[in-house]
């Protein structure tokens, strides 16, 4: 029956009773570190995970770097200055054991997942679920055909245990600990995240999905993801992030490294909806070798401050990179997001499309870099940024940087800032839609080039989130 409906019909056939954000019934943790960050805590995290010595050393080195590195001076330094690193739990373990079957997952956590609709999603067409509950992956399953194809899809902790050599060879090679203060922090205290390895020539037909969720007050979440696509392979990885609202500030600082070997194709989709007090400071970077293709599809809603600039290093000839991102900033929020494309090789191409909406005094910034190194001739790059302002108090800025050290390149750049048109609103309201409904419809339309790239259930979720954000009643 459902199959007979078109995607468009399903997408807009959403019930109105959707509500986000909740607390767990009981606060039942197997382990919770004290607040603050010391060598002892880092060592304890590593020991609890039974990590090899090299990882402990890596963590401790990263901690030193973190403590020495100054805060970024760009983005929103005022908001960054408010982060109290001493007031954060760097490690929380929800249960001792990882569940592999749904039945093994503890009841309280199941309820959480039920609210997120994960079991249904899984029953339908999940390839594998790795759902991060607090700092540890507690539920994880891989469908048999994936295993048959030889695809590895694990949480990062298990990845390290079971595939130590692959991890050691690639971990931190795309984003070194010293890259920036927050990558250093993540490298010191990382926990969870996903490890994906796709063998040569294997196409993973179904998106790999992961859900992340912060559920403890004052808890940092530092997941670490590493995806390696061997030559000629394809994988689509999706993460959805949501967080309930808490009164004091939480920190989310992930590191995501993608490696697309020659001719491989990686698509990485994120829908994040952190609660309005989360600092979301994420480093995402991909390496695309010859003829490889990498796409970041990145949706940023919620959080207090997001600073995130997915980047692609186009290392080999004919590599192609795309970043398609949306950002929504409401009251008290700043979405400082963008993209970086670095062309090291000839015949490489890149596309950046950024769409942002600011409302109720919210602020969005596009911060982008297109860099072309000498010798990288016949490069093509296009950048398009559209900002939509919902009212007079809201703000949008663009900081596009172009560093082009080669003559034979084609670079296009377009930027627009517009307001929700009175005539569009009037047209929709003259058909009986309330002002809120009309506005939401216009906003959904504005984001449609992004939404249409998402699998249906994520598109539905995004539209609902936008509707909630338009009402200003998230939480």
């Amino acid at each position, binding site marked *: 029956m459902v199959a*007979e*409906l*078109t995607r*468009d*019909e399903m*997408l*807009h*056939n959403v019930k109105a009773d959707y509500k986000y954000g909740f607390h767990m019934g009981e606060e039942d943790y197997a382990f919770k570190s004290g607040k603050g960050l010391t060598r002892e805590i880092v060592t304890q995290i590593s020991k609890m995970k039974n990590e090899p010595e090299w990882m402990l050393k890596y963590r401790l080195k990263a901690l030193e770097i973190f403590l020495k590195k100054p805060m970024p001076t760009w983005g929103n330094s005022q908001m960054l200055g408010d982060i109290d690193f001493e007031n954060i739990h760097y490690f929380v373990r929800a249960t001792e054991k990882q569940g592999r079957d749904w039945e093994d997952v503890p009841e309280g956590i199941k309820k959480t997942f039920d609210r997120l609709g994960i079991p249904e999603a899984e029953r339908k067409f999940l390839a594998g679920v790795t759902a991060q509950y607090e700092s540890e992956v507690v539920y994880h399953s891989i469908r048999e055909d994936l295993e048959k194809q030889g695809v590895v899809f694990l949480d990062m902790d298990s990845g390290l245990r079971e595939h130590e050599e692959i991890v050691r060879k690639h971990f931190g090679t795309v984003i070194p600990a010293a890259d920036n203060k927050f990558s250093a922090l993540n490298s010191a205290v990382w926990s969870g995240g996903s490890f994906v390895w796709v063998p040569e020539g294997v196409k993973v037909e179904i998106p790999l999905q992961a859900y992340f969720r912060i559920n403890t007050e004052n808890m940092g979440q530092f997941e670490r993801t590493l995806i390696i696509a061997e030559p000629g392979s394809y994988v689509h990885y999706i993460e959805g992030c949501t967080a309930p609202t808490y009164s004091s500030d939480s920190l989310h600082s992930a590191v995501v490294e993608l490696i697309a070997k020659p001719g491989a194709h990686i698509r990485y989709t994120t829908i994040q909806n952190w609660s309005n007090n989360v600092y979301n400071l994420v480093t995402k970077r991909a390496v695309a070798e010859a003829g490889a293709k990498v796409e970041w599809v990145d949706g940023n809603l919620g959080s207090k401050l997001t600073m995130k600039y997915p980047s692609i290093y186009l290392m080999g000839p004919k590599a192609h990179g795309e970043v398609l991102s949306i950002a929504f900033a409401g009251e008290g929020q700043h979405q400082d997001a963008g993209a970086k494309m670095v062309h090291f090789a000839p015949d490489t191409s890149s596309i950046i499309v950024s769409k942002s909406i600011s409302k109720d005094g919210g602020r969005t910034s596009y911060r982008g870099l297109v860099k072309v190194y000498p010798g990288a001739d016949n490069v093509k790059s296009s950048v398009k940024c559209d900002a939509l302002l919902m009212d007079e108090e809201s703000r949008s800025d663009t900081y596009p940087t172009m560093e082009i050290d080669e003559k034979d390149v084609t670079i296009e750049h377009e930027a627009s800032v517009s307001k929700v*048109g*009175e*005539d*569009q609103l*009037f*047209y*929709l*309201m*003259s*058909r*009986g*839609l*309330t*002002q809120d*409904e*009309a506005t939401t*419809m*216009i906003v*959904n*339309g*504005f*984001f*449609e*080039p992004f939404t249409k790239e998402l699998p249906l259930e994520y598109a539905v979720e995004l539209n609902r989130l936008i509707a909630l954000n338009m009402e200003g009643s998230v939480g």
Partner: protein
Amino acid sequence: MSATPILEIKDLHVEVEGKEILKGVNLVVNAGEVHALMGRNGSGKSTLSYTLMGHPRYVVTKGSVKYRGEDLLALSTDERARKGMYLAFQYPVAIPGVSVSNFLRSTVKARRAVDIPVKEFRKELKEAMAKLGVKDEFLSRYVNDGFSGGEKKRLEILQMALLKPEMALLDETDSGLDIDALRTVAEGINALANKDNALLLITHYQRMLDYVSPGFVHVMQAGQIVKSGGSELAKELEAQGYDWVTKELASSGSSK
């Protein structure tokens, strides 16, 4: 004719950006009636239609409008629409990224105040589209985005067919239509007209009125309705132009 008119406009004065455009419009429309409103470019026809629909730029400075006895001007645009007012726009607005099918379903849901099951709605929609010669592919296109002039007008009529208004204002729905489209659209309009609703057709051309024959024809000039008559008035205008009305008014001294 029922006791309460559907629409009752009294001495309506309207300003746009501080400039008075409507200068005392009077008009009564009863259920079952079809009215035509004609007049030169810039005489204030669209201003009247926007005002009746509640566009925020059009400020009523004097006068009253009653809709089925209720103060229309006190209602918001969306309330007017849900109560059965409808405006087919002279220049329909594009809503990029919003599919026609999603748009139509949302508006129908708003107007009927019930959620219609997707498939039921689709059936109804396909029937209405077939009658108006709207192609299926339109459903997945974005509302009025890149539509030709005639396509936009057809979509306006399709919406009217689905929303089933009680008082429909059609602002030059006939312009931009080719001859076949004009006939289809006119047939669509006729199919919708019944004894319980009413239509106000704003038009420049007799050819539309050949299909949809109005019982009442009004001429607007400089923000007022200066002459009203039956369908013969439209024919006279077609033959003689508006100068004839202007001259007649000047000689009778009934207007400025």
